[in-house]
C-alpha cells in the first residue's frame, strides 16, 4: 500500500517509540497535522511558540534520556527553533526537530515562508538533513534518531519539503542503521584504563570531576560504585548535578564560578584529577592556566574533540562513560586484590582536608526575617519535596542558588541550560518533563526576567492541564546582570532594573491557572504548602531581597581559588574590573 510522506513520517516516529511530539502547525506541515488528527496514538503537545516546543522537547529528553521530538512549519516556524537547537547542541540533548520546507522546486526562489534552515542550523545541530525524495524519508528518520541519541547526543534537524510530505511511495523502514562515516567509540582502551587505575591507586589527593556525560550515558550507578570503592571526593558540574546524590558524604558540591569553596580548593590542590563526561568549560575552570595546577589528569569522554580542547590530559580515554567506569572499577579491584585496606588510609588525610574546607566556607547566606531570602525559598521547596521531584530553572541568580541549595538525589531530575545559558528555557522544559512523568512533581524555578521570555506557555499548561509548579523568585532585577554591575561596573545598574513586571498572580489567573504570592518571610511556607498541595498548574511568586548576591564567586577570568564571599569593597577596584573586561 502506498503511503504519503506525512503518513510515512508518523509511522517512522512510531517505530522509534515516540509518544509525544512538541509542535506548532503552519502551511506546509498541514498534511502532517492532518495525519496526526486521524492518528491518536501520537500525542501532540501544542506549545504557544516554537522556541517553547524545542525547550519542552529538551526537558522531555533530559528527564528520560529519550529523544525529544519537535514538529514545526517552514520559515518563521523553523527559525524560531534556532535558540533551542543551539541550547541542545551545547548541552548534548538528543532531539529530532522536523521542519516543513517549501516544495523542492521552489527552494531558492524566496518562496513564501522559505528559510534555509539547513544552512542556518548547520552550526548548531549535531547533523541535519534535507529530504529530497520520498523514498529516502524512512531511512533519514531512522538515521536522525540514531545520530541524535548515540555517541555524544545532540539535536538533529530534518527539513521536509511540501512535495515530499504529500508524495506517495512504498514504506520500507530499515531494521538497522549503518553510516560508514559515523562510528562512535564506545569501549575504552584497556591499556589506558589500566594506567588510569594505577594512577588512582597511587594518588594521595585524588578528585573526581564528573558532568553531564554521566547522565547521558546512564552511568550514575558506575559513578557511585567508583566513589564507594575508592572514597574519592567528588565534585559535579552544573550539568552533572544528580549524577551523584547531593547527600553523599563524598560529594563536595558543584565546582567553578559559583561552585563551593571545598570543590574549588580540592581541584586546585589535588594530585590526580579524574574528569568524566565533562568538557572543561570556562565557567568551570576559571583562568585555565591556573586550573588544577598540580594534578595528573585522566579525561574520559565520548567526544574526542573534548579531549585536549581546553586543557592538557595525561591519560585520555575516549568512549562511553558507563563502559569505561565499569572497566576502571574492575581494574582497580584487580590492583587492590593483594592488600585492599591500605588504599583508604592513603587518602584519609586528604578527605579530612576536604572536610575542613567544607567547614571553613560552607554554602550559606545571611538569614533575615525582614525580607524573603531567595535561598530560603529554595531550601523550603527542598524540605517540602525532599528532593523527590524534577526541577528546572531559567538562567541567572535563581539558577545558581538552586544549583547550590537544592540537593539533587537522582539523575535526570535537574533540567537547566548550562552551555548556552538560555533565559526562557526553564518553564517549557518543565512542561516537557511533566509530559514524560505525569505522576511526578515537576517544578520550574525561575526569575521574573527569564519567565517573561516564554511566558506564553502559561496557555499551554492551562489548556492541557499540565500540573507544573512555577516558583518565581522576583527580585525586580535581571539579578545576575545587576550583580556583575554591582561588583565590576561601579554599581551602575544599566538596563537591569525590571521592577515594572506585570502582576504575575493576576496574569496566572488571566491564563486560567492558580496564582499565589508571598511578600513576607512568614508567608513563604504557607504559599509553598498551599501551592504544592494543589492538583493542577500553580504559579507561586516570591518577592525576594532585590540585592542579594550569589556567593562564592570567581570573577570571570580569575583563578578558581580567588573566590569572593562578599561584594568587593571598592566598587572602582581597577584590577578586578580590568580582569573582567578583558575576560
Amino acid at each position, binding site marked *: 500500500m502506498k503511503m504519503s510522506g506525512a503518513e510515512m513520517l508518523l509511522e517512522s516516529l512510531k517505530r522509534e517509540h515516540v509518544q509525544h511530539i512538541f509542535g506548532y502547525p503552519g502551511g506546509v506541515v498541514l498534511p502532517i497535522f492532518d495525519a496526526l488528527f486521524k492518528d491518536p496514538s501520537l500525542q501532540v503537545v501544542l506549545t504557544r511558540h516554537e522556541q517553547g516546543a524545542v525547550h519542552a522537547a529538551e526537558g522531555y529528553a533530559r528527564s528520560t534520556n529519550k529523544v525529544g521530538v519537535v514538529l514545526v512549519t517552514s520559515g518563521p516556524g523553523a527559525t524560531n527553533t534556532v535558540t533551542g537547537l543551539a541550547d541542545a547542541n551545547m548541552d548534548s540533548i538528543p532531539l529530532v526537530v522536523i521542519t516543513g520546507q517549501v516544495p523542492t522546486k521552489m527552494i531558492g526562489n524566496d518562496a513564501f515562508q522559505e528559510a534555509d534552515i539547513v544552512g542556518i542550523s548547520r552550526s548548531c545541530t549535531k547533523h541535519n538533513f*534535507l529530504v529530497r525524495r520520498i523514498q529516502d524519508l524512512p531511512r533519514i528518520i531512522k538515521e536522525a534518531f540514531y545520530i541524535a541519541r548515540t555517541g555524544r547526543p545532540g539535536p538533529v534537524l530534518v527539513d521536509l519539503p511540501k512535495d515530499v510530505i504529500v508524495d506517495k511511495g512504498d514504506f520500507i523502514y530499515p531494521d538497522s542503521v549503518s553510516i560508514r562515516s559515523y562510528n562512535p567509540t564506545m569501549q575504552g582502551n584497556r591499556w589506558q584504563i589500566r594506567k588510569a587505575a594505577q594512577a588512582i591507586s597511587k594518588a594521595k589527593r585524588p578528585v573526581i570531576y564528573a558532568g553531564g556525560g554521566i547522565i547521558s550515558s546512564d552511568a550514575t550507578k558506575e559513578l557511585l560504585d567508583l566513589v564507594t570503592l575508592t572514597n574519592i571526593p567528588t565534585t559535579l558540574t552544573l550539568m552533572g548535578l544528580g549524577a551523584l546524590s547531593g547527600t553523599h558524604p563524598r560529594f563536595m558540591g558543584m565546582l567553578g564560578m559559583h561552585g563551593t569553596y571545598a570543590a574549588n580548593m580540592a581541584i586546585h590542590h589535588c594530585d590526580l584529577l579524574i574528569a568524566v563526561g565533562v568538557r572543561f568549560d570556562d565557567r568551570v575552570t576559571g583562568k585555565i592556566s591556573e586550573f588544577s595546577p598540580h594534578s595528573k589528569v585522566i579525561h574520559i569522554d565520548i567526544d574526542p574533540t573534548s579531549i585536549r580542547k581546553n586543557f592538557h590530559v595525561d591519560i585520555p580515554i575516549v568512549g562511553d562513560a558507563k563502559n569505561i567506569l565499569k572497566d576502571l572499577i574492575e581494574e582497580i579491584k584487580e590492583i587492590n586484590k593483594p592488600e585492599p585496606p591500605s588504599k583508604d588510609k592513603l587518602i584519609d588525610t586528604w578527605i579530612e582536608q576536604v572536610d575542613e574546607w567544607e567547614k571553613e566556607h560552607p554554602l550559606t547566606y545571611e538569614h533575615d526575617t525582614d525580607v524573603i531570602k531567595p535561598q530560603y525559598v529554595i531550601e523550603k521547596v527542598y524540605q517540602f519535596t525532599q528532593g523527590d521531584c524534577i526541577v528546572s530553572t531559567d538562567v541567572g541568580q535563581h539558577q545558581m542558588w538552586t544549583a547550590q541549595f537544592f540537593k539533587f538525589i537522582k539523575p535526570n531530575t535537574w533540567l537547566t541550560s548550562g552551555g548556552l545559558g538560555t533565559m526562557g528555557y526553564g518553564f517549557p522544559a518543565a512542561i516537557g518533563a511533566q509530559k514524560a512523568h505525569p505522576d511526578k512533581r515537576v517544578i520550574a524555578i525561575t526569575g521574573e526576567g527569564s519567565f517573561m521570555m516564554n511566558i506564553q506557555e502559561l496557555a499551554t499548561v492551562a489548556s492541557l492541564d499540565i500540573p507544573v509548579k512555577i516558583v518565581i523568585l522576583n527580585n525586580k532585577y535581571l539579578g545576575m546582570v545587576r550583580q556583575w554591575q554591582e561588583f565590576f561596573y561601579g554599581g551602575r545598574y544599566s538596563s537591569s532594573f525590571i521592577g515594572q513586571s506585570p502582576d504575575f498572580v493576576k496574569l496566572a489567573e488571566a491564563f486560567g491557572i492558580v496564582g499565589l504570592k508571598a511578600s513576607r518571610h512568614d508567608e513563604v511556607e504557607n504559599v509553598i504548602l498551599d501551592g504544592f498541595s494543589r492538583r493542577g498548574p500553580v504559579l507561586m511568586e516570591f518577592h525576594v531581597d532585590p540585592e542579594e548576591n550569589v556567593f562564592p564567586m570567581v570573577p570571570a577570568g580569575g583563578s578558581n581559588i580567588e573566590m569572593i564571599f562578599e561584594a568587593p569593597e571598592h566598587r572602582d577596584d581597577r584590577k578586578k574590573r580590568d580582569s573582567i573586561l578583558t575576560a
Partner: protein
Amino acid sequence: MSEIQKHFIQVVVENKFGVLSRVAGLFSARGFNIDSLSVAPGIDPTVSQMTIETQGDDHVVEQIVKQLNKLIDVIKVVDLSEFSFLCRETLLIRVNTARPGDREEAFRISEIFRARIVDSSPATYTIEVTGDTEKIEAILNFLKPLGIKEIIRSGKIAIAREEQHGGHRPSKHSIEGEYSHHR
C-alpha cells in the same frame, strides 16, 4: 606551545549535497584557517576527495583533525604532514606577447618549466603549468617582465608517497591509546 606550521589535510567525505559547506563552515566557526582547498569526486563516485591547506600549532591541528572527523559526513581524515608527501598545484597564466621577442621569450620559459601554451591570441599567450609551490613561484617570476594579464591558480592537491602509506607512524594528534581502535 609548539610552533605554527603548514599542514595538508586530506579529507574523504560523502559525495552529498552540502558537505562542502559543512567543512568550510567548521573552519570559519572555529576560527581555523583555510589557505587553499580543492575538491573533486573520487574514483568511487559516492565519495569526494578534499585537500585542505591550513596552518596551526600542534594543538590547533589536532582539533582540526578531530573536529573534521566529528562531522557525520566525513569518512576519513589524514594529516599528510605526518608523512612524506607530494604536493601540486596548477597555474593558468595569460601574459602579454605584443612586443617583438615576447613570444620567443614566453616559449623559452615554458620549455624550461615544462609548461604548455594552451591558448594564444595576437597579443597574448595562455600558459598552463603544474608543480609544487616553488616551481609555480619561480615561473611567475620569470614571466612577470612580459606583463601578466591574468592568473588563475588552483587549490593544492597532495598525496602521500607510496612506501609510507599505511605505515606504522602513530598519529601525533592523539596520545597513543586515546581511542580503543582506529577509525
